């Protein structure tokens, strides 16, 4: 027998909810009490409202280029809700859902995307990294932070989020490989939204799944339905728990879909059919969870209207982003946002001359309807 098989691999796939919100089988334990899922739903709705507001602000010239997470809300909310406060998030530029859940304020995010230096910091999770724009270059930072936890013998883990395109880059593999070799408490979550600007997933890699890239690095890799927030939360929580307990690194691929353009500077109609996008709207993660909550009797039209009204109020306030928004001068740039209590940043005053911070007296969003950061 000159040849024999010396290793076999399999990639698991997890999904709890069907697109219509019905349960495909037993639910994870945190979902047994449906009330636990309401904060996840509110988080997803708020993320969607935030994205919509940001795009409106960009279209009216008050924000720079912005990357929407439309259709991928379950990935960020599910993953961030699986983190402990002491864990560290190393996000990419489309991870506002996770950042908002972790306690970065909408104000701070909008300041950044509005080109205001004050948005480069946030009062929230002080050890979380800033978003990384160059794609995958943040994966080694996540490995480095995980190494720090390991060397200090802290029971903490690092969550790094990146996109499907990022898995084609060397940095992704270098970080995953090193984290595998050193058994680092790192979870890399792939937000596989099927499109890296104009390049579809199939053209990105011949690999059947992106999760299987873990196999080469010798770490667990699995795939899940990224539009099923229950699956995201449960599997990321398991990977993070394993990491904190010394079980090493893992790779989780969340399969979702980018319903919006890559960024506001992109026009996806140049390279993909509207029909494809319409099809994916039928798999909307927000609608799926809402249907599930309604079916379980913890969500009603009245509650839905209440949340929508709250987000609308937050949106209205943000109109003050507008006309009186002066370019940030020196005094502005130095304004220490962190002096404002988290969630209270909208009240911060700008400049040395008593000028109002142009950026949203508005976004009291987080304070009013945002669920409390990770428990």
């Amino acid at each position, binding site marked *: 027998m000159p040849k024999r098989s010396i290793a076999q691999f399999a990639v698991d796939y997890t999904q709890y909810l069907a697109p219509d919100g019905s349960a495909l089988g037993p639910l994870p334990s945190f979902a047994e009490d449906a009330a636990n899922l309401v904060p996840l739903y509110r988080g997803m709705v708020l993320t969607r409202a935030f994205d919509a507001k940001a795009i409106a602000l960009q279209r009216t010239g008050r924000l720079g280029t912005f990357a929407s997470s439309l259709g991928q809300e379950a990935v960020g909310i599910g993953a961030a809700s699986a983190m402990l406060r002491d864990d560290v998030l*190393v996000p990419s530029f489309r991870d506002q859902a996770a950042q908002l859940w972790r306690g970065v304020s909408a104000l701070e995010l909008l300041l950044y995307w509005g080109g205001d*230096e*004050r948005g*480069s*910091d946030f009062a929230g999770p*002080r*050890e979380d*990294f*800033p978003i*990384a*724009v*160059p794609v995958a*270059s*943040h*994966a*080694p*930072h*996540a*490995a*480095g*932070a*995980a*190494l*720090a*936890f390991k*060397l200090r013998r802290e029971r903490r883990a690092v969550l790094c989020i990146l996109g499907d395109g990022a898995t084609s880059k*060397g*940095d992704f593999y*270098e*970080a995953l*490989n*090193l984290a595998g*070799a050193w058994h680092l408490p790192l979870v890399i979550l792939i937000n596989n939204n099927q499109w890296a600007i104009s390049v579809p997933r199939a053209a990105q890699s011949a690999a059947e799944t992106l999760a299987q890239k873990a196999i080469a690095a010798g770490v667990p890799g699995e795939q899940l339905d990224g539009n099923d927030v229950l699956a995201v939360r449960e599997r990321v929580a398991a990977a993070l728990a394993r990491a904190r307990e010394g079980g090493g690194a893992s790779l989780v691929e969340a399969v979702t879909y980018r319903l919006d353009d890559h960024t506001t500077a992109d026009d996806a109609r140049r390279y993909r059919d509207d029909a494809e996008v319409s099809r994916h709207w039928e798999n909307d993660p927000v609608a799926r969870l809402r249907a599930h909550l309604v079916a379980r009797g913890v969500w009603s039209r009245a509650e839905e209207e209440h949340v929508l009204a709250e987000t609308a109020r937050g949106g209205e306030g943000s109109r003050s982003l507008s006309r009186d928004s002066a370019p940030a001068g020196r005094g502005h740039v130095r304004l220490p946002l*962190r002096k404002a209590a988290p969630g209270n940043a909208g009240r911060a005053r700008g400049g040395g001359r008593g000028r109002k911070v142009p950026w949203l007296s508005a976004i009291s969003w987080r304070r009013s309807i945002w669920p409390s950061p990770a428990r």
Partner: protein
Amino acid sequence: MAERNLVEAINLALARAMTEDPRVVILGEDVGRDGGVFRVTDGLLERFGSERVLDTPLAEAAIAGVSVGLAAQGFRPVAEIQFMGFAYSTIDQLLNHASRLRTRTRGRLSCPMVLRTPCGGGIHAPEHHSESGEACFTNIPGLRVVVPSSPKRAYGLLLAAIRDPDPVVFLEPTRIYRALREEVADSGEAMPLDSTFTLREGRDVTLVGWGAVTLDLLSAAERLAVDGVEAEVLDVATLVPLDAARILASVEKTGRCVICHEAPLSAGFGAEIAARLAGPGLYSLLAPVERVAGYDTVMPLPRLERSYLPSVERILAGARRALSHA
């Protein structure tokens, strides 16, 4: 007091820093059991253990990127890249992340890392092992770039680099790793990271360089002295931030300047010094600024490297051109 070469002086500084500060960790390829390909980290694994001296997988971008993550978490990583030719893949990490993490987070996170790598030619090394890529790093705001030229300065500057709160690229000239010995006390005293050092005083012509060529500049100064020409020799040592004041003061005295580096001439760091001289130093100049450098070609294989590298003869020729102007 013990005489030490550059390798031993760097080793001494690393051991000192690790003893003083538990946050200092070394990581890189073969830095542990092997003690590094140039033996710079020799004995440190045995002394400080495998959690402070880490043999990494063969991945330079990861070495730099992991250092960013460690540094952001409060460690003081000292990363080694085996040869300059392999350091270029760290530029993404240095430029996009390490150098700007403090600014990017408005001071919330910072990046106190040191990236050490050998540089320069003259040891008959293979392709990609003899580059002088300092200018690739000097144009990255937020990064200090240091090139020691003697065991003492290597010790003092490396200690300063490790203690510095921001990222430092520390380039070690292979040609002088073992070429000279001098007494180096393990004093724990750092040297300033923003100073040009005057190695020899003179009033007729200023010879400026860094790294291995400073020894050639000193030899050239000896030769010029035979002819009664007093050359002042400056070791820039820290390219960024540049101690331009020291160079300008020297040229104010001599009126003539020869800038020397191994890297290719065009857009080399010598061009920055020449620009400073052409600006605030213009009215001090009695002669055009001379640059003696590597050629604008690929660094050749070892049989031609002596033709490529600036030699004492080429430095002398440059100095004589400068002196020929009345």
